[in-house]
Structures are given as C-alpha cells and as structure tokens.
C-alpha cells in the first residue's frame, strides 16, 4: 500500500500534472510538491494519485523494471 510508481510529466495545469507511464496516462496532484519546481519531462513518484517526490530518470527506469517483475509474478499467480 505504500508502494509508489514513477510517471513522467507530459503537461501541467496548476496543481494537476498530466503524467504518463507504460501506455497509461493519469492526472496527478502536485499539491505535495507545491514548493518544488516541476517541469514537463520530469519523473515523479506517484502514490494514490499524488506526486510525493521528484526522481531521476535512472531511478524511474530501475523502479519500473522491478514493477514489471511484480506485475508478471501477480498475473502468474492469479
């Protein structure tokens, strides 16, 4: 439940960022990062629809590798 997922910012409108990851787009709240400069192309760590940290591209990609494994395992067990 505490696991957060990296997504990339595609556009920003106030406290809402339109983000993308793995073919999925979501509107994400930037309210918890309101004191940071967030730009298009940045990677964010998203938890329950809110960005909680800005992260590097490398970190985003290595986290997605892990999540891909977790998802594959889950569909195997389902």
């Amino acid at each position, binding site marked *: *439940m*505490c696991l957060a997922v990296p997504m990339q910012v595609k556009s920003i409108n106030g406290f809402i960022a339109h983000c993308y990851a793995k073919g999925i787009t979501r509107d994400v709240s930037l309210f*918890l990062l309101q004191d940071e400069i967030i730009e298009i192309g940045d990677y964010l760590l998203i938890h329950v629809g809110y960005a909680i*940290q800005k992260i*590097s591209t490398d970190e985003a990609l290595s*986290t997605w590798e892990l999540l891909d*494994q977790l998802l594959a395992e889950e569909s195997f067990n389902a």
Partner: protein
Amino acid sequence: MSTEAKRLLDKIRALPLPDKVRIMNVCGGHERSISLAGLRSALPTTIELIPGPGCPVCICPEEDIYQAIQIAINEDVILLAFGDMLRVPVNVPKGTVRNLEQAKAAGADIRPIASPTEAVNIANANPEKTVVFFIAGFETTSAPVAAMIAEGIPNNLLLLLSSRLTWPAVAMLLNTETPTFDALIAPGHVASIMGSEEWHFVVDQHHMPTAIAGFTTESLLSAIYSVLRQGIEHTAFLDNCYPQVVNPHGNITAKKIVNQVFNIIDAPWRGIGIIPNSGLELSMKFDTHNARHRFPIYAEEARKKSGAMPPGCDCAGVILGKIKPNECRLYGETCFPRNPVGPCMVSDEGACRIWWSSGIKK
C-alpha cells in the same frame, strides 16, 4: 538477478557472519521484493529476514472495520475504502456480515477507490448523499489524504481515519526486554515523506544497525550488506541505501500539511493493543468531517470489539515478528488468500499472503 545484485550477494557471502542474525523489515513492499527475488534462499542460512509491522491493512483495528461496516449498513451513506480493506474480516457470529464485501453484497453502497481525489469526485457528484471515506494507511498514504483535506473537501465528505505511524511500532518492539531482531531495514517510501532522520532513534537509543532501503533487489541487498557489516564491526549507524528518493528531512511541504490537518494520538493496532503516539486523527478544525463524531453510536458499539482477533489467528505474532507466517496455526489449513481468516492473508502487503503467493507451504 543483475550483475550488481550478484556482486552484492558475493560480498555478503564473504562476510564473517555470526551463527544467527535476524533482520526485520517493516514494509509490505520490501517483503514482496524479498520474496519475489528469492532472497531468503539466496542468502546464507544464518541470515533470517523477518517481516514486521509493515502492512497498514493488517493492523487496522477490528473496531474500526466493524464501525465502517455498521455505518455502511445502517446509514444512508456511500462508503469508500481502498480496495484492500473490503475483504478484511471481523470476528462476528456466523450468519452476520463479517467484511465490507459482504455488506456490499447485502445492499450497502460501498465503493473501492484508489485515490483520495476519487473520494472528492464522488462526494461532488452526489451532493444529496453523505459520503464516508474509511482510510487505513501509513505515512505515505496519510500525506495525500492530508493534501485532499487541505485543498478543501466537500461538506458531505466525512472521514473514518485509521491512519498509523510506522516508527512508534518499531520503538515499541525495541523497548521490550528481548527484541526479536538484531538489525532493521527501514521503509523507503515512508522515509521519502518523513525523512531519514526519523529513524535515527534506532541507532541513537538502541545502538541497532539500521539501513533505509528502496525496493529493487540491489537496494535491499545493499541495505542487508550494510547492517550485517555494522553488526560485525560492532558499530551502528543509519545508512541511507535509497538516496535517490530519501533525504534527511523528507518532503517538508507534505509534513507541514500533515501537521496542519491531523493530530497525533495514542492508537490501537489490531491484535497488538495501544501504541503511544502512533495514530492520526482529524484536528478540531475539521471536526465536522469526522465520521466517528457524526455517528457516535457505532463508535460506542465498536469499542466492545476492541482487541478482538479471529479464533486461532496468529496474525499478531506474525506482525510483531515473533513467529513466521507459516508457523501460524491457520496458515494453509483454514486460512488462504481466497478465503482469508486473518488480515495478513488478505492484503497484497500482508506477510502471510506474500509467503503463500511465493509458494511457501506450512
């Protein structure tokens, strides 16, 4: 396994390890990664990896779930909860509703959601209804909930909060005479919000080797290597093995918002009892949104459920790291993911469910 992970494993194998060393993690995400990567079988047998209190759904008090069920059944409301909560059973006589899923089947308007923003949207779309959002979660989840409140929530949205803080549970485990572990892996995403400094007490007050880990095999192995080496060298420091995401002070904006909307309270943990300063409750300013105060009758009734666990269920022992999941009397006997008896078999982050899904039998 990556080259880097293999290199770290070799480094761990080359250490002059003691006869037995017990390393606790307090995060369901860590436990899932450990099980997925098969770290227990890859590491030397003298290293025991213990899942601790890392699942907010598992420790959500019976009385709070009972209260949510009663409000959903008896009041004209829409009840919202994160999906994991719907199947967690309470201890009630046969034939009565034992979880939110059954309450939904019996006609209550209960909807699983994945984000606080969905709660706001549902409340706005149903202005004539009272909407109750039942929330269990640790610090990572409490920050978005606090943001939802601070941004301004609809008048018809009430909250039933079962939010908990992680560190007080670890403090409680360390304050017992014989802690069940020798080193700690601290939770990465909790620390991304709260900062690494929050875990300094483990080192300063208890001189226990501690490392903050991320969720990749490499990050977890780095943390395991760090605490093993600290133990061997009879030293203890807080090693941040997840610096890409965790800084000393955390997300300062998020912490400020959390402090504005919540008060810290002594709070019950399922099967464990009250842990001082471990819960969050809405501050007085938001009292009109507190479902406990709007529906006091169920809070009163629910109090009788305080501390109840299903008969034979050893979830409390599992959460405290006193027994392994497969040492529970019910594990794989009457308790399975498809028909769970205890909360640790329900949630994706519950230790019993993770162990069962990774093929560990009784």
